[in-house]
Structure formats: C-alpha cells, structure tokens
C-alpha cells in the first residue's frame, strides 16, 4: 500500500497518529513523520487515519 500525505495541507493535527501509530508519528517539534509504504495488513488503520485527518491530507494509493 502507498500512503501520501499532502504536506502543504497537513497542519500537524496528529489525529492520524492516534488511528495508525504504526504508520504515522510526530517528531520532537510536533511535525508529522510517516511510513510511505506500510504493510497491507495496516489498511484499516490507515483508512481510519485518512478519515480522521481534519485537513483530509492523507491519500491512499493502492
């Protein structure tokens, strides 16, 4: 699975981190880090994260 976060949109809300902690995390300064090619087993989590992102910045590209 391919995950793309539009970093122009992302405002570091961190909602994605709650939904999919294996894929999204925050660095020390509160900036988003993410795994661009997570395992397919994490699809439900990542979809949940995409739903919860207030800026709708997360795209899943199969």
């Amino acid at each position, binding site marked *: 699975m391919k995950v793309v976060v539009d970093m122009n*949109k992302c*405002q*570091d*809300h*961190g*909602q994605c*981190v*709650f939904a999919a902690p294996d894929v999204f995390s*925050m660095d020390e*300064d*509160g*900036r988003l880090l993410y795994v661009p090619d997570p395992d397919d087993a994490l699809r439900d989590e990542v*979809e949940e994260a995409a*739903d*919860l992102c*207030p*800026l*709708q910045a997360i*795209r899943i590209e199969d």
Partner: protein
Amino acid sequence: MGAGIVVAGASMGGLRAAEQLRAAGWTGRITVVGDEPHMPYNRPPLSKEVLAGRAPFASLAFTPKASAADVEWRLGARIVASRLAERNVSLDDGSVLPYDGLVVATGMRPRRLGCPGPLTGRHTVRTIDDAQGLRDELTRPGARVVVVGAGFIGCEVAATAVALGVAEVTVVDPLPLPMVGPLGELLGRALLKRHEERGVRFALGTGVAGFAGEDRVTGVVLSDGTVLEADVVVESVGSVANTEWLDGNGLDLSDGVLTDGLLRVGGRPEVVAVGDVARFPNARYDGVPRRVEHWSIPADTAKHAARTLVGTEQAPFAPLPTFWSDQHEFRLQSFGAPALGKDDVRILSGDPEGDVLVGYHTGGRLVGVVALGGHAAATGAARYRAQLLKQPALTA
C-alpha cells in the same frame, strides 16, 4: 433490489454513513439526498483558510471511498416531509422515495438574529457560498466588521479578518468572555487577551438590539443604545437543527433529533441519526443526551449507526469528543467533555500567557483537557487523551 437505504443530508455525516454502511456489509442500494448543489466538502476551513483565500473549493471536497462508488447522489434536492410509519420521504420536486432504512444527517443551519434592521451586509458561515460571499466583502478596502457571537466560529472569523488586513473588527457577545460557555473562565480570559493583543476589539456583556441602515447595514445597535459602525456583520450566534422534514412523526425534535444509545430514532430499528443533528446519550459520561457539533462526530456516529442499521450487535455509543479551533497563529485542541468539568478547572502544565494545558474535572475526576498554544501544547493534550479513553463511565 429493494428500496434500500436513504441518507438524508449530503455532507460529512451523510458521506461517512454511506461508506460505513458498505464497511458494515450492506450491499443494497444507498441513495444520498442533499439540498446543496455540491458533493460533500469539509466545513472547518470555511472560517479559516477559505476566508483567508488560502484554500480553493476543490481542496475542500472529500474523496469518497471506492466502496461507496455505487452510491446514488441526489444533489440539489431537498427532503420536505417524511412518514416513518410508511417508510418514505418526499422531495421538493414532488417525488416520494421509499426506504428500508433511513439515516438522518441533515445537520444544522446558522441561527439568525430576529432583531429589526436591513438584511444586506449581514452574513453567516456554514456553506462554501457563505464563505465566498463574506470573503468578497471582507476584502473591500476600509471594511469595518462586527462579529456578533464570541463562540468558536465568531472568534475564528474575527482572527481571519484581522489577518486579511481589516482594520476594525469588533466582536459582540452578551457573555463576559469569549468561548466561556464551552471552555470556562480561565481559557476565556486567556483567549480574550490573545485576540485583543492581535487587534480584535470586543464589546462584551452586551446584546444586540437591532441593525442601523436603510437598504444595507451601516451599524449594529447594542442593547445599551451604543451604535457600532459596520459595513459587514457576521452573525455567529449558534445553530438550528434541520429537522422540520421529520415533523409529524411523534419524534422528540426539541434540540436536534433524539436518539438512543445505538443512535436509533423514535425507537425504530430502521431509522438512525448521525452528525451534528443527532442528540445522543454518551455512555462515557452521564448518559444525558446532547448534540455535539464537533468535526469528529460525523465519522464516529456514522460507524456506530451503520452497524445498528445492518443489525450487528454492539455496545452503546461512547465516543471521546475531539475538536480543534485555529485562531491567529494558535490552536485550541480539546479531548473529552470540558463543558462537564467547568467548575473544577486546573492548569496541568504551562501558563495561560504561553502554551497551556488545562484539565476539566467533575467529582475530582478528569473529564476533558484543552490545550491552547502551539504544537507543544497540542502534543501535551494528546498524552492525556489515552488517560481519558481508559477511564470507566462517569456513572460507573
């Protein structure tokens, strides 16, 4: 194929309901009816990035999931009546739509001030057209702006207007502090100070008696008779539920549509409500039904309501409410139900002048946390989120 499920309202709640019905295993027909001409779009940017001119409309549209590709969208169509006993709704074009299941997702509309005066020049912010219309007026040179209502939307609009270069922005509210209803005095005071430092003026502790002007508004008349000159007025004085189409079915529509803990309406297993319009008991707290106008609620309610409709057994609804608000360069981030703990407010870290994290308690127990400031404050709040999630129900 049967009549299928009709979703009333084509915004975030309606879209998420359709997607979650597919996720819950519903393979039958789904028809979403909405009176706006647009596909569902994200509203929070309307008072922030859209007003500031930083987000074009295309950037707001939700991308429906592939599973919802066969959903039928009837946009620009308004539901005018319903007969729940006969399982059908009527549209404004005279057609009648039968259903096997119904999702109520018609949301809210802005409350308007009933006091006398001209209408032109007075705005609300709920739809993309509202936001674009307001932006056109805010960007006219020399515009003087009065915002009526110091809640979240009012304060966001005031902050955005200042950032756009509007020289005179005044917020009016009968309460003594901004956002004091949901957040209490400590943060109300901190927010007042931050807004004033950035050029927003306030007329607090006073209501609005009327609007001055002939064809177009030229001022706002306060309860004490003072007139604030204004070219643009924004009314952000709360919202009214879009439930008129449900009249005549014996439902409790006194504040949104009342549901049970499974989000069922009127005790009917085939009718559920989602989003802003749903007044649901939250098993996490005291079980008193309330509407929750937070962005996180449409997705949470849609998931639960979809399972209820397809008959999957489940526990009563117990979401952790979450909201944020961006004003000037700072963010408010809330987890839980601060309004339930306003009588026992403690600073958990930081101080109100800078980044601050505030805890709200009832009976000595933490029920909500709100961060105000930059990233550090929000990250601090996130740490308490896990604690809030683990707590047993308030009634337990």
